[in-house]
């Protein structure tokens, strides 16, 4: 017994030392040397055979110039990306090249995550043909932090069979849209006329811009929200009336995002849904037969002209901490070359970013892509400031404004006024 008591402290000390040592172990990575044997590329999404094959062909092309460099591609799920970027930035171990959503480029540029590629971009001849709105969207304070890779706009997917049964044609203005939704809903009880993504902002902006309003405009040094104008109120009223007055979308739509809404359409519960051309694949996954009965038309304006669409898509950027910027740029010019861009964008259901490619007849004659090809001719952007991401993603000002009206918590006037105040306080914060 006595011997045990004397041994116990020793055992305790040995045990604690062992524990502390194991806890501290596993931090022995010390390869700092900037070797060119490896180029790390982060791609968004889940990947897939088509994308892997495409990226292999890009690597083969790139290796002609840099045979000693291996390209390592890692896929990051879209929703994980912000966390992954923050961790990479905080830990100092990031990629060399990364894809990122084009609404996020400015925010990450402001966080000093991305390298300034202005000189490289300006000296690159093919870059001159890229759609100017997309190029502008990847700038911060006049400097280029990303290069557009592919582009997409939203349009309306609709059920051609149900429309035929109800005897309505694809609408070209707001009134026709409501009438069509009501007609189909009457013919098909238990379905919704429109799967309204009440908790999403990008489809709504087409209605806002269609009504002639702006999200926010810069006046000298300060931003002014366009939400408390009669035009904006008209758009909010139309959007929310779809649920509250016309009842062509359910109250639950207040909480739907675009994926929720398009799933309603894909699974045969709604006659119309807003979606981008790239989302066709996901809808077909939900319901392979939907392809036989879907058609598309551009989001209509109030008066008969197609409404402007948000120019969405993806950018490619060089990570600021990368020690292989020159190598990274060489990879980008292969990836972003006109020929590769067209090849890749088409396989995803997106558009290439080059003006001449977009306006070519290939898209205008396609049954589904024609509506998108029309929409991409008339695009607009969300306010160009790194603070926009806080309005859009963190405080979700627009989504909250629309939801509060749909839920009956606020009138259109009150909701738009509140949203305008909140937006201005965020955008003009020092």
């Amino acid at each position: 017994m006595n011997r045990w008591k004397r041994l116990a402290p020793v055992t305790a000390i040995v045990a604690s030392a062992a524990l502390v040592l194991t806890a501290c172990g596993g931090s022995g990575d010390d390869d700092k040397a900037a070797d060119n044997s490896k180029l790390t590329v982060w791609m968004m999404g889940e990947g897939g055979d088509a994308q892997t094959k495409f990226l292999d062909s890009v690597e083969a092309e790139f290796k002609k110039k840099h045979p000693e460099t291996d390209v390592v591609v890692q896929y990051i799920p879209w929703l994980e990306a912000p966390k992954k970027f923050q961790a990479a930035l905080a830990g100092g171990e990031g990629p060399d090249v990364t894809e990122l959503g084009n609404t996020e480029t400015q925010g990450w540029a402001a966080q000093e995550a991305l390298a300034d590629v202005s000189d490289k971009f300006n000296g690159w001849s093919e870059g001159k043909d890229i759609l100017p709105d997309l190029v502008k969207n990847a700038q911060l304070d006049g400097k280029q932090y990303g290069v557009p890779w592919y582009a997409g706009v939203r349009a309306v997917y609709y059920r051609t069979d149900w429309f035929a049964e109800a005897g309505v044609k694809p609408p070209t203005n707001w009134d026709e849209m409501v009438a069509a939704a009501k007609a189909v809903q009457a013919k098909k009880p238990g379905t919704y006329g429109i799967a309204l993504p009440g908790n999403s902002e990008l489809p709504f902006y087409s209605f806002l811009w269609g009504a002639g309003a702006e999200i926010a405009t810069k006046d000298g040094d300060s931003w002014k929200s366009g939400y408390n104008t009669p035009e904006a109120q008209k758009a909010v009223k139309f959007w929310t009336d779809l649920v509250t007055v016309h009842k062509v979308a359910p109250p639950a739509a207040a909480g739907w995002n675009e994926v929720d809404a398009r799933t309603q359409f894909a699974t045969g519960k709604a006659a119309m849904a807003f979606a981008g051309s790239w989302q066709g694949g996901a809808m077909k996954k939900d319901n392979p037969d939907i392809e036989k009965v879907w058609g598309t038309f551009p989001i209509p304006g109030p008066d008969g002209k197609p409404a402007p669409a948000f120019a969405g898509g993806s950018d490619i950027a060089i990570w600021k901490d990368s020690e292989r910027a020159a190598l990274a740029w060489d990879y980008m010019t292969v990836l972003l070359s006109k020929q590769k861009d067209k090849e890749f964008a088409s396989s995803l259901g997106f558009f290439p970013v080059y003006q001449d490619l977009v306006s070519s007849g290939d898209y205008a004659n396609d049954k589904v892509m024609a509506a998108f090809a029309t929409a991409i001719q008339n695009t607009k952007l969300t306010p160009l400031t790194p603070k926009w991401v806080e309005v859009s993603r963190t405080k979700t000002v627009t989504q909250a404004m629309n939801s509060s009206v749909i839920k009956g918590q606020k009138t259109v006037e009150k909701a738009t006024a509140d949203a305008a105040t909140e937006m201005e306080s965020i955008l003009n914060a020092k």
Partner: protein
Amino acid sequence: MTTLTEATGEAAARETPARRRRRRVDHLPYLLLLPCLAIIAVLLLWPLGQVVWMSFHKLDSVRQLRGDREWPWVGLANYAQILGDPFFRTVLRNTVLFALANVALTMILGTLVGLLLNRLGKKMATFVASCVMLAWATPALTGTIVWKWIFDDTSGLVTWLFNKLPDGLSTALFGRSDWTGYGWFNDPLMFFAILTLVVVWHSFPFIAVSVLAGLKSVPTELQEAARVDGAGPWKVFWSVTFPVLRPVFGILVVLSTIWDFKVFTQQFVLAGGTQDRSTFMLSIYSYAEAFSPPPKYGLGSAIAVILTVILLVVTALYVRMVLRQEDE
């Protein structure tokens, strides 16, 4: 650490040799605690100190965390900004009311199930306890996703059940007969009701089993004697069981309070992220401020510190109450 050894050294010097020998043996518990303390210090105390330190700085760039940029000292400005924001009052109200309701419901349900388990026969008790423990064993994330599906607006079980109600009855009670497309999470009150259901479902098994363990240690003669004297179940519980188990209840209330004040996973999943600001509570508010782009680590830290201080105060009050009752 050094002051501690000095102090014990001085104390030892003043004592008689016999007592000193006993003293030496008393070091053992501290030595055994050492590895644990070291790990807690590294994994808990250090980050805790870091959060407090961060809350006094303006931190809005990841590069500052890396040490590439300076940390501008702002004193209490972060706290002033949060406490001065009317939104904070909404968040605090949500947090406190939610915690109160959940602690009460969890304790009541857990105690009732504990009493039931105590009365059941061996086989039945094992069966019920296993079922109940399954809820406790379900990871918060998985469990909440299932609950979210149960309340899905189109294909959820609850929506289906309400649709099965006779139309007349449903209209008379709720003013609607078609529940497809009804937004279960639209109304903040409804959201909190569902969140309460999920959180209570997750946490009552622990209370039940702890109460059961306590009950097993109560001599049954006491209760039998009370029953013979003509006391009903209500009276037996409040006059015999509860006073005996008071320390157990004290600890359980403290633990529940801490858990319910910092509910995060369930809320994050049910609300679908950090979009629904009207249902924010302190923990998700802190997370959203700190990590949603653009990051505001200083502000987020300050909210986390406020939450911690509230919890410390609540816990201290409870502990004092329990100790005082012990003395009586």
